[in-house]
């Protein structure tokens, strides 16, 4: 069972509504945004990044992103997959909360625009619960979410040293970068919906009812996909 369109779900866009019709004027953007989501969260090949890692990073990024529907959705999905991990992720995300973008520029005329901000480290009580790979992934995700212009080869070296491979880093980077897109589309479309009070009332009802159920659906689908993979590729 799959979700038809995560952006519609999170932004509360109902079939046949005005914003639905507008979204469908960019049919590939609509369909391929969802296809990107599927390729990241319900892929044919999970490859070097496990389903739990994917949803753990998503829950962390969505919590940092501050868009309420996305935060609830990804937190709910991780909760279904691994409740203990979901609690840890929520605490760690709270420790990482800040505002972006900030960061430095190569020395020169842009140096006046350098803006300081935190380099996030997962607090030590939670590093063991997350493990090396997820600890490194969360620290990198925080960099990408809030201050991507500070990235350097050393940032990727930390991931490599924590056991991430090049294909795994590409998938992780796409996951965080895609969510940076998806969360903003949801934020933007939600704001547009809210700008029309009548539509907003409809949307809020639809979104609230659908969110909890669909977070469960996503988790079920991911588990099923993971189970299928285990059968195909015995360790």
């Amino acid at each position, binding site marked *: 069972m799959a979700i038809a369109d995560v952006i519609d779900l999170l932004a509360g866009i109902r079939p046949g509504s005005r914003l639905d019709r507008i979204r469908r004027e960019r049919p590939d953007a609509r369909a391929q945004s969802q296809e990107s989501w599927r390729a990241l969260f319900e892929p044919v090949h999970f490859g070097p990044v496990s389903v739990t890692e994917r949803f753990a990073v998503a829950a962390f990024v969505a919590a940092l992103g501050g868009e309420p529907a996305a935060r609830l959705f990804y937190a709910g999905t991780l909760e279904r997959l691994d409740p203990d991990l979901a609690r840890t992720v929520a605490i760690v995300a709270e420790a990482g909360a800040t505002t972006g973008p900030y960061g430095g520029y190569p020395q020169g005329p842009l140096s006046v625009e350098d803006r300081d901000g935190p380099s996030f480290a997962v607090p030590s009580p939670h590093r063991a619960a997350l493990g090396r790979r997820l600890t490194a992934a969360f620290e990198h995700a925080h960099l990408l979410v809030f201050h991507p*212009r500070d990235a350097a080869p050393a940032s990727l070296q930390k991931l490599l040293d924590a056991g991430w491979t090049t*294909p795994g880093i590409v998938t992780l980077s796409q996951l965080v*970068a895609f969510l940076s897109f998806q969360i903003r589309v949801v934020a933007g479309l939600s*704001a*547009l919906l809210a700008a029309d009070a009548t539509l907003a009332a409809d949307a809020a009802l639809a979104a609230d009812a659908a969110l909890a159920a669909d977070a469960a659906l996503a988790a079920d689908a991911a588990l099923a996909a993971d189970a299928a993979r285990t059968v195909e590729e015995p360790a």
Partner: protein
Amino acid sequence: MPGTALTHPDYRGPNAFVRAELGWLPWLEPLAEADLTDRHRAGLVDPSRAKSPYFMLLAHDPDVLGARTRTDKDIFYNTSSGLPRADREIAATATSRVNGCIYCASVHARFATTHSKRGVDVDRLLDEGVGADLDPRWNAIATAAAALARTPSAFGATDIAALRQAGLDDTEIVDTILGSAFFNWANRLMLSLGEPVAVDA
């Protein structure tokens, strides 16, 4: 044995936003052309992208790359309705300016210039940032893009009112949202997987 990130100490990157063409050097090994399978080729979408280290690095996850590229093309190239191409490129350039992606900003500043013939204004966006006074329409688009680039997003009723005041209808506002949001995806990949370098004339 962990792998090693690639460094390029012999190359010097730009230290300002420029409209000139730049190169991009990866920090992880891209796929080699000889290693491409049909699945990789499908992910690259355009065969010519096998020459690009950026796309060949992203081809390590070909399914995501393919969907990303098709999303990108429809947001920027589908002009059957909505925002003119130049305005979409202003959203992309403004977003890249705020996030600090010198490479992305250069590419889309060139596209914006090609489609608008307003190189002077585009250069002012690069030089002065999203506060540059360009014209009511571009000001509203750049301001909206900047608000959406913040984490958490600061985009809201004020931005929508300003876009409407500048003459954008809701299809055009959705195009502004999509173009800006997409560059929050693209900027993060370009900024974190490699670096821009000056191309010698």
